[in-house]
């Protein structure tokens, strides 16, 4: 039973990611490599962030404003890394195109680029889920469960699994939106991405209020769903445009 609980929490957080991986990413070796490097990228950004914050830890549990600063700096930093990731991707795309020319294959098509952005986003989301949720799940496989004082209605593992799922969806779709926005030079999407990331992060601040997790977690899920929907729309629009242009 306890193992079942642990596996269940892990599947809540990573189930969609796993099916995405098995269904889309694993078919193309290059996407797997993209995913791995994006995960590594996120990990490095997290290490740098924690290096910066290491001096100020541990934060006093009663005070909330340090958390606000933490959220702001973290989101800003991670959006910065997303820009770097985009630059690297652009370089890689050039190399890929050159390579395709050399072996006389067609260049990357639109769906290829979108798949790459999907893999990159999934890598970010996966890294988030792994480090913020999965690595803390070990006790969930044991004999007991764990409640945080401020959230006495839901087990801590369940809350963190749901939050991880939300962020996984948000990271994945934000990366797709961002790559489209950068590629098309759409200002709206470029601003949309950090704003949504910030909103989602701020929503987790609600968890600091006693009982806030009952409000913050559903809100986060709604944000994730809306982001997913928006990215779906963006992709659909882009593809239809592309088809029109071709025909």
């Amino acid at each position, binding site marked *: 039973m306890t193992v079942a609980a642990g596996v269940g929490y892990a599947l809540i957080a990573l189930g969609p990611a796993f099916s995405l991986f098995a269904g889309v990413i694993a078919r193309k070796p290059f996407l*797997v490599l993209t995913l791995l490097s994006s995960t*590594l990228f996120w990990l490095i950004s997290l*290490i740098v962030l924690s290096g910066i914050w290491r001096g100020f830890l541990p934060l006093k549990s009663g005070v909330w404003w340090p958390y606000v600063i933490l959220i702001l700096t973290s989101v800003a930093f991670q959006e910065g890394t997303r820009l770097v990731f985009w630059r690297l991707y652009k370089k890689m795309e050039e190399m890929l195109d050159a390579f395709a020319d050399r*072996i006389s294959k*067609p260049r990357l098509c639109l769906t290829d680029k979108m798949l790459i952005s999907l893999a990159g986003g999934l890598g970010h989301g996966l890294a988030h889920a792994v480090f913020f949720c999965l690595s803390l799940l070990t006790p969930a496989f044991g004999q007991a469960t764990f409640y945080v004082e401020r959230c006495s209605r839901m087990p801590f593992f369940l809350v963190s699994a749901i939050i991880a799922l939300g962020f996984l969806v948000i990271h994945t779709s934000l990366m797709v939106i961002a790559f489209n926005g950068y590629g098309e030079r759409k200002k709206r999407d470029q601003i949309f991405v950090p704003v949504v990331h910030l909103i989602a992060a701020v929503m987790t601040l609600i968890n600091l209020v006693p009982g806030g997790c009952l409000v913050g977690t559903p809100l986060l899920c709604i944000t994730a769903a809306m982001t997913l929907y928006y990215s779906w729309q963006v992709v659909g629009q882009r593809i239809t445009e592309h088809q029109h242009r071709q025909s």
Partner: protein
Amino acid sequence: MDPVADGPDPPGSAATVLDTLGEEVLAVMFPVSICMALVVLLITLLAPPSSSPSAPPPVTAATLVYLESPSDSPAQKLVGALLDAAVFVALVAVVTFILVALYYYRCTGFLKNYMRFSAFFVLLSMGGAIAVALLRRLDAPLDAPTALLLLFNASAVGVLSVFASAVPILVRQGYMVALAVIVAAWLSRLPEWTTWIMLLALAVYDLVAVLAPRGPLRMLVELASSRDDELPALIYESRPTVGPAETSSSYAPAMWSEESQHRDSAARSGPNLYDRVGQQDDSGPAMVEMRDLGSTSRDMATSNQAVTGQTSNQGGNAQHAVIQIEQREEEEETAPLVSAASANPTIANEEHTQISSSEPPEEEFEMFESSRGIKLGLGDFVFYSVLVGRAAMYDLMTVYACYLAIIAGLGCTLILLSICRHALPALPISIMLGVVFYFLTRLLMEPFVVGASTNLVMF
């Protein structure tokens, strides 16, 4: 993990570049990942409950000089671990030289049989011990005769699969991974400080042994390549399961790992077989090498001009005759367009450059490219897994970080391999990255992430 670094895809099949690019890389990363995952699983399963006192670490070749005890001061531990690592690496080096000598005097049959014996021994004794521990942990009842029968049969098939070419490649790959898992699980029982220092020392040793002009591993490779001979060694081949039947003998030499030889010899030499075998197996694996013979040949086959250009490039770096020989054959076999005349001059050039060029920069990984895909020595498997297993004893977070770091290191190695195209040691980059990430994660990231996520604040 640069895409361009990966070998070019086989001509024909795919519609876009994306479909096949990186296949060879993944073919290596996948078993490595499986091996690490199994070791982590084993270690977390077999970890003694925290309440009971853990058994003292076994006395092995790696702890000959100093046996760590928790009460020692850090300075004591450091000095002791350094001594241990020095002794261990010295042992490995001695064994390697013995192997090279044996190989030089053409005791190939002896070496091969020795390797078979050691594979058998590892599977039977160490694998058996681990299986017993697992059965005990899971409370699975199994009577002794059945267990012995199963174990003996599994070991026998393992021995057959090491060198016999008739065995399906999947079985052989499976046994290679199993061997690596067993040895790594055994090794991860070493005390903490000794493990870290030993890993670093082995990474350095690997670098030197492959890179230095008189490095034992390099001498072995050169010998094997000059003889166009198969080196008896335990190496993981990532060739496609159903591949073209290119079974020319030239590939074989690329696949050897000297580690296995080391292991064998080590195992023999040790009077107290058990521990020694384990350790020396480890030492052996350190020298594992990766070769990616396939991409080279494919490159050649696909574009002749590029081929010649590459060959000349390789000449700068490649100091192993193996590659050249293989290239030559492949050119003749698969790419008739390249005239032998054009091919041979480049080879001659290569040889010249080999003589003249002292050493390539950091490209000393023992990886080769062959038509059969990348080959990675078992030692690399073992020590990657030891690193991850050691990380698993602390926390899962460090496991993920170390895994990513090792895979990234492997990716970098493969990129370098595709650039310089000769055998490279696969340990240094990965181990260095892994160790750095382990300590960064443990010291910096963990308090941060745990502090944030236990407050349910995430971003």
